[in-house]
């Protein structure tokens, strides 16, 4: 529903060159790049860039597993990447075409090797945590000054949610994020792989679902920024983008992001090249362009997500590199957890659970 | 003992079934019925005759209740029916298109009106059977309208409109969709049924032959007005105007100036170099008044020699012959170019007929053969 194709190619064509130019098609998350980088890429390489966006891993995976998506670069999250590699959806990177690979951060590469052993198929784009986006003033009005805005109890305790319902709560429409969080809240292993444990998340989610205004994975950025909702369980950078938009609009809305103190999911969005990419050569050029230290820093400065690029750190703005919500301290990192993909049968239990949570049936 | 002639219109004491009193109907600026007054009597078979657009269909729709008069009064059996809606009138109509309900069988079509009355089942069944028998449709009771012929449909429409035993039955061009043979047979059937049921029929037609055949009286209409109302023979023999004379049958019209003679005789000066004509007039004419002599072709004699003692005789030559089998019509051109039609029965075989093209002939007629009209 949120596809807007940036036809920068058309703008360039107006400049005079109408020849059949080389083309790279990129499929990335919505609100996930500084669009000036896209123009810069076209100017530097002369390659036309078609840039489409999605807002759910499931939609991307459907396209990947159907095959023939026509994209040259896609950006799945680690868990999904792992499964799609197994399905044979991606091609190995030709590292000789990626000189900027040396810029990458070994700490992050170690972590991403969990999904992509040897980092053979992918490079990290951004990473972050899933947590609580809070409209501080409104939540204080509803729950008082001592509201647990850094705890999962804010969104999983029905007593809190009942009160918050009046000012609006959004949840991510992503079972792979919400179910582990619910398990974490009740003290279960968030990376549980058995159906029985996963089923325990149902009661937690069902208890609060009547108070959730919407399950959606991108609308909450604007909703938070406009003051339409007061809490979103969402992705760190998205919440920080909302914070900035509110500040720009100067509408009196103050947004804060908190990784839950019980532990937050740490995720990695990985750039990979589909096995059937029409222009793998151009795809490598795009990857190398993004891995340029200055370019990567520009992206992070824009979207408020941490990246896996060590060299970029010297170009990062102070409010990015210095914000523990983006680049958490060593201490916090210990408290973060990661998850791995479910197998097909467990997946069905999880998705069914999620349908039930969303529809109430 | 003389047979009692059915002529209630000649009896001043007779109460009419229908009375139109100064009825006017306008559609916007168009005047469909212009201040019309007319009586129709019980058991009459009354024909409204005229060209399309003369107002005859509007008359019928006024009677059925589908239109209300702009001014004036319509009475049925002494009661003003203008405010009565169509479904409350003891009047039924047989539509030009028959308007049979295509989703109902013949039986159900005939029973439709009776069911609306809430008639008991036994009585209803009997009545429908009676109607089927009257119109000889017993075998088709179970069929749908699209499964029977045009003539049969016409009879279903008739049966349906008669089933409720209306005081007045309106027939809108009832035979228009039938071919000539079937039409003629049906005309007699209609008359038969009208006589059997004793219902008053008002028929609208543009076919003068049909009107003449079936009707007890004919009203000739033009531009929203009735020009003449009379029995068919009188309409034919004594039309009151050139319009009526011309509309009904074939006629020769000779225009001239009147010169009254003694005893209703009028001399007509009509063309240079032609002898004046003489006619017995039924109305007075002033000297020099424009008048029209209407004379039917069959009343004009055609002879080779000038007939002795004829009131009127003119000479010409045969311009054309229309052979119609039983009769022939001769178109005779006079020396001034006027064409007069004369008709004679073909009592002899064709080879022995006396006249042929370009033959010089005499046309003659008596003073009483034609009608002298002022308009």
């Amino acid at each position, binding site marked *: 529903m949120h596809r807007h194709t940036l036809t920068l190619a058309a703008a360039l064509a107006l400049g005079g060159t109408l020849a059949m130019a080389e083309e790279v098609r990129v499929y990335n998350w919505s609100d996930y790049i500084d669009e000036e980088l896209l123009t810069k890429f076209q100017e530097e390489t002369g390659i036309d860039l078609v840039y489409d966006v999605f807002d759910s891993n499931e939609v991307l995976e*459907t396209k990947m597993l159907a095959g023939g998506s026509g994209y040259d670069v896609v950006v799945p999250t680690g868990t999904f990447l792992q499964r799609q590699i197994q399905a*044979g959806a991606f091609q190995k990177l030709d590292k000789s075409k990626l000189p900027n690979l040396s810029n990458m951060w070994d700490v992050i590469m170690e972590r991403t090797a969990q999904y992509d052993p040897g980092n053979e198929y992918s490079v990290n784009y951004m990473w972050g945590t899933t947590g609580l986006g809070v409209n501080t003033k409104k939540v204080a009005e509803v729950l008082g000054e001592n509201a647990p805005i850094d705890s999962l109890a804010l969104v999983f305790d029905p007593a809190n949610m009942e009160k918050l319902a009046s000012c609006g709560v959004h949840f991510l429409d992503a079972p792979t994020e919400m179910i582990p969080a619910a398990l974490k809240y009740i003290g279960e292993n968030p990376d549980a792989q058995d159906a029985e444990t996963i089923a325990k998340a149902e009661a937690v989610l069902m208890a609060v679902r009547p108070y959730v205004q919407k399950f959606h994975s991108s609308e909450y950025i604007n909703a938070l920024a406009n003051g339409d909702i007061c809490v979103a369980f969402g992705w760190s950078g998205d919440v920080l983008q909302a914070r900035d938009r509110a500040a720009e609009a100067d509408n009196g809305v103050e947004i804060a992001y908190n990784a839950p103190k019980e532990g937050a999911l740490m995720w990695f969005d990985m750039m990979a090249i589909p096995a059937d990419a029409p222009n793998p050569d151009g795809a490598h050029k795009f990857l190398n362009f993004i891995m340029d230290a200055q370019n990567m820093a520009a992206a992070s400065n824009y979207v408020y997500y941490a990246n896996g690029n060590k060299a970029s750190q010297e170009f990062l703005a102070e409010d990015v590199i210095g914000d523990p919500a983006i680049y958490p301290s060593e201490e916090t990192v210990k408290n973060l957890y990661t998850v791995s993909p479910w197998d*097909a049968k467990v997946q069905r239990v999880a998705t*069914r659970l999620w349908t039930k949570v969303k529809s109430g*049936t | 003992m003389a047979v009692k002639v059915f002529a209630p219109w000649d009896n001043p004491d007779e109460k009419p079934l229908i009375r139109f009193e100064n009825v006017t109907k306008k559609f916007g600026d168009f005047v469909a019925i212009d201040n019309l007054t007319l009586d129709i009597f019980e058991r009459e078979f009354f024909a409204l005759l005229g060209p399309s657009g003369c107002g005859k269909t509007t008359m019928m729709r006024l009677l059925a209740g589908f239109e209300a008069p702009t001014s004036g009064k319509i009475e049925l059996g002494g009661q003003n029916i203008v405010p009565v809606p169509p479904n409350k009138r003891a*009047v039924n109509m047989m539509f030009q298109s028959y*308007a049979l309900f295509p989703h109902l069988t013949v039986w159900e079509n005939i029973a439709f009106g009776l069911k*609306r009355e809430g008639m008991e089942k036994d009585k209803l069944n009997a009545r429908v059977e009676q109607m089927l028998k009257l119109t000889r449709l017993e075998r088709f009771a179970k069929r749908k309208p699209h499964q029977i012929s045009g003539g049969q449909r016409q009879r279903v429409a008739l049966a349906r409109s008669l089933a409720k035993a209306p005081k007045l039955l309106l027939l809108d061009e009832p035979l228009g969709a039938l071919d000539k043979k079937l039409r003629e047979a049906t005309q007699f059937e209609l008359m038969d049924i009208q006589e059997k049921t004793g219902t008053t029929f008002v028929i609208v037609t543009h076919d003068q032959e049909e009107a003449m055949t079936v009707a007890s009286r004919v009203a000739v209409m033009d531009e929203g007005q009735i020009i003449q109302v009379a029995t068919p023979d009188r309409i034919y023999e004594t039309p009151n105007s050139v319009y009526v004379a011309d509309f009904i049958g074939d006629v020769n019209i000779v225009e001239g100036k009147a010169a009254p003679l003694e005893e209703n005789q009028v001399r007509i000066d009509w063309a240079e170099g032609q002898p004046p004509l003489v006619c017995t007039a039924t109305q007075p004419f002033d000297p020099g008044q424009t008048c029209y002599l209407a004379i039917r072709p069959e009343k004009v004699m055609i002879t080779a020699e000038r007939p002795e003692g004829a009131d009127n005789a003119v000479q010409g030559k045969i311009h054309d012959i229309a052979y119609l089998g039983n009769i022939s019509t001769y178109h005779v051109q006079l020396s001034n170019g006027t064409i007069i039609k004369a008709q004679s029965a073909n009592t002899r075989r064709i080879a022995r007929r006396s006249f042929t093209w370009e033959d010089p002939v005499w046309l003659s007629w008596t003073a009483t053969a034609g009608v002298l009209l002022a308009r």
Partner: protein
Amino acid sequence: MRRFLLIAIPFGWLLALFLVPFFIVVKISLSDVAVSIPPYVPQFSWETGIGTFLRDLDFENFVFLTTDSLYWKSYVGSLVIAVISTFLTLLIGYPIAYGMARAPEEWRATLMMLIILPFWTSFLIRIYAWMGILSREGLLNQFLMWTGVISEPLTILNTNYAVYIGIIYAYLPFMVLPIYSALDRMDTSLIEAAEDLGCSRLTAFWLVTVPLSRNGIIAGCFLVFIPALGEFVIPSLLGGSGTLMIGKVLWEEFSSNRDWPLASAVAVVLLLILVVPIVLFQRNQQKQQEAEQ
């Protein structure tokens, strides 16, 4: 030879565009979900042969449909929504069609145009427009608050009411046009005949107009009911999380859950449910054609 070709073309069309895809869907519905491209097994291969391939197919997904109440509740939910919205569309569409058919001749082309005009805009855009109209801060609530009819904004968007409004709006032309064409063909003297035979305006309408527009009503109802049953755009945009419609479930199974075999099983069952009304519709059409001959 020409005869053969005449028959072969429509049958070839049917085979290529309906039967072949349908059998592919049936085959997928008998497969198992897997992490592969495409995301199900078994894949047919010439080496293992057709025997092994067939042995791996099973009805597990259909069994699964019966074990989870979500599915039959969604089928029932869709049926209820489709039936109610078809009925409401008829209720609104009939007077519109009637008005059009009785309008002066010179107006009819314009009225017809007005009915067809919305098709010039994308369906999706029109449904998005309804989101703007029906939301809490939307035009409808603003208008009602302004007139003073309500003091609190009504929650219509994301409820079943919004789904009904969307379906009725989107499918109204499919109801109006066949009824209009039936009424337009009707001889108005039939109504006069009925009145002449003792019917009031209202009884004439019930006894003559309605039965004679029956075929139009049936065609209109099917044209609304069949797509409404499988509708997924309207419930997913206008409906709430509580709106259970099988089209939405199918979409989620396919797209969010990536469970193609189960999604195919849902689709096959939906088609079987639709076969009954479609066959009835066909028979009605045939009867109508016979009646016209």
